[in-house]
């Protein structure tokens, strides 16, 4: 059964169309992430699902019931806001019971529910504090608590972690994941952090300028992005895009980098559908699919000579900023493999993971 269905949705503010023809559905219990750069319409879409904004045209269904004209409170949803939107004058407990009060749930039941949720989120000791007396992480937890007391059909999150610092963000990310595993509610989660989307979601909807670019599992999106935007948006450091040409040789198809030394980088057989020799392509390689060539690692046929401009050790991995044929290439290598700045080294490319894009449509070529 599909828990959320969005059909042909459009939304305009006056002249400006901020959402164009969105189609999306989420199965029961799924965790959907909406990602995209700022201003792409993620929050607007979420608000429409919540009933906080009206649609211009199209349908929103929750558990197969058309809810276009239902007030937020009648949609049986819960939402967590980026700013947490905790009621500043109420204690944590009152924040959590407010919704139940509005729905006239008996006091005793309210109490039980709060106790249960507080237990789940380990916020029992905070119940009598005001939001201003909480740390960022605690506020985040309370915001989730407020959503959890509802037991709704649908959870909506609008960038719930973006106000936290890096370490806390990673922690809370895991907690949300655990929680979702435990509670199993259908969830729509807005973020502009692709790592969050990757780690949390069962399916990711990548949006750009109000248009849904791709809606698929994290693995598919990461490995088989539908177009250059999706490929570039997902992954950090970002995918390298090199202008290249397709060449055909005895060994099959390959590419040569424009302006380079003509080395042919052979493509695996399953990447060559739809290709024609001489065709211009954008050759996309993710940083982690480069590796310095080591004598002992055996040979890889796809190699590229690069000049190392800058070496950035980040701890677990080291980032190399390099140039090849005047184009920038970022590679991510093991710290122990790191060359020196100014060196020219050979990088091996894991050709089974590369992507080719059509330079004009920017769509991914090859299956």
């Amino acid at each position, binding site marked *: 059964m599909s828990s959320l269905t969005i059909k042909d949705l459009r939304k305009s503010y006056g002249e400006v169309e901020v959402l164009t023809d969105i189609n999306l559905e989420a199965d029961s219990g799924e965790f959907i992430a909406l990602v995209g750069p700022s*201003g792409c319409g993620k929050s607007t879409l979420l608000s429409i699902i919540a009933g*906080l*904004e*009206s*649609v*211009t*045209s199209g349908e929103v269904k929750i558990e197969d019931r058309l809810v*276009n*004209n239902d*007030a937020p409170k009648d949609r049986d949803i819960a939402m967590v806001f980026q700013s947490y939107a905790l009621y500043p004058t109420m204690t944590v407990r009152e924040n959590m019971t407010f919704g139940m009060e509005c729905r006239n749930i008996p006091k005793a039941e309210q109490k039980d529910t709060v106790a249960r949720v507080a237990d789940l989120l380990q916020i029992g000791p905070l119940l009598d504090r005001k939001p201003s007396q909480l740390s960022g992480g605690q506020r985040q937890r309370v915001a989730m608590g407020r959503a959890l007391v509802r037991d709704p059909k649908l959870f909506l999150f609008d960038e719930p972690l973006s106000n936290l610092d890096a370490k806390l963000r990673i922690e809370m990310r895991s907690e949300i994941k655990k929680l979702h595993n435990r509670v199993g509610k259908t969830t729509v989660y807005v973020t502009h952090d692709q790592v969050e989307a990757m780690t949390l979601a069962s399916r990711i909807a990548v949006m750009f300028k109000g248009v849904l670019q791709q809606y698929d599992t994290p693995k598919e999106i990461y490995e088989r992005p539908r177009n250059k935007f999706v490929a570039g948006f997902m992954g950090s450091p970002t995918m390298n895009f090199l202008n290249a040409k397709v060449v055909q040789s005895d060994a099959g198809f390959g590419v040569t980098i424009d302006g380079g030394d003509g080395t042919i980088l052979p493509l695996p057989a399953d990447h060559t559908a739809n290709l024609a020799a001489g065709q211009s392509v954008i050759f996309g390689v993710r940083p982690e699919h480069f590796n310095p060539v080591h004598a002992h690692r055996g040979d890889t046929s796809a190699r590229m000579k690069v000049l190392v401009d800058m070496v950035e050790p980040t701890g677990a991995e080291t980032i190399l900023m390099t140039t090849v044929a005047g184009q920038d290439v970022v590679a991510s290598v093991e710290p122990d493999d790191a060359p020196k700045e100014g060196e020219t080294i050979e990088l091996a490319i894991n050709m089974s993971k590369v992507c080719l894009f059509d330079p004009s449509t920017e769509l991914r070529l090859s299956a």
Partner: protein
Amino acid sequence: MQAHTPNSQTSQASLGQRLANLTPQMVLAPTIFLAFAYVVGFSIWTIWISLSTSTLLPDPTYQGFEEYAKLWGSKRWTVAYQNLFVFGALYVVGSLAAGTVLAVLIDQRVKFEAVWRTIYLYPLAISFIVTGTVWRWIFHPNTGVERALHDMGWLAAKFDWITDRDLALYVVVITGMWHASGFAMALILAGLRSVDGDLVKAAQIDGASMPRIYRKVVLPTIWPIFIAVTVVLLQFAIKTYDLVVALTQGGPGVATTVPAIVVYDLMFQRGQIAQGAAAAVMILVALAFVLVPYALWSAWQSRKEGARHG
């Protein structure tokens, strides 16, 4: 936030739902009615009366713009109208300047801040009538400072601005400033407090002296506060009546007459309601000189704001 506007394809919203969506408008309706009656109704009534033959009592007979011509033919009115602009400008600028100086002084992490602030703010609680009366005592050579100086033996002392037709208006300005500069101080001070401390640090590192930091960095940063204060003060300036009546009664001669006094006199003392209404309309016109640019400015401001979020 958007009240649902039911659209054609999906207009199955229940009646109750739609009524609930109209709650804000319904709650606001009485105010809209009152505000409309008060602002628009009274203004239109005044404009209409100003074009009528009303004398002792309002009388709807149409006459035309004659009363405006008479009004502008009267020296008292031209002086009053001119005074409005001179007084308004000096009063606003002076209060802002004094308020700024006070706010900057208090901002120097002084002790007993609340006491200083209260001292400068309390005149706002004093009515214009009382303010005018007390300052008349102080300014009048027979009772005030000059008299005190004479009694102290300094017979040559002269402080008779209030009786000098060229200087009396400045007495009104000073008194108005006394009343309002605390208000400006309060807002500007709070504005100063809201300025990012890093800005000051950055300017210090840039090598700017404290006066320069205030002049070039801090005060320009809080210019929206200056606008807000200006609007509130202008509103006072345009409505000024009691202050002048109590302080100088518009004199010497007509030197300190302001439009509100003329309106009141024409309408009530002299039984020329039509001409008084014409004068009131002219006050509204003066107001437009201020409000129209302000409205344009804020519209531009919000458009810019919107553009930035977009």
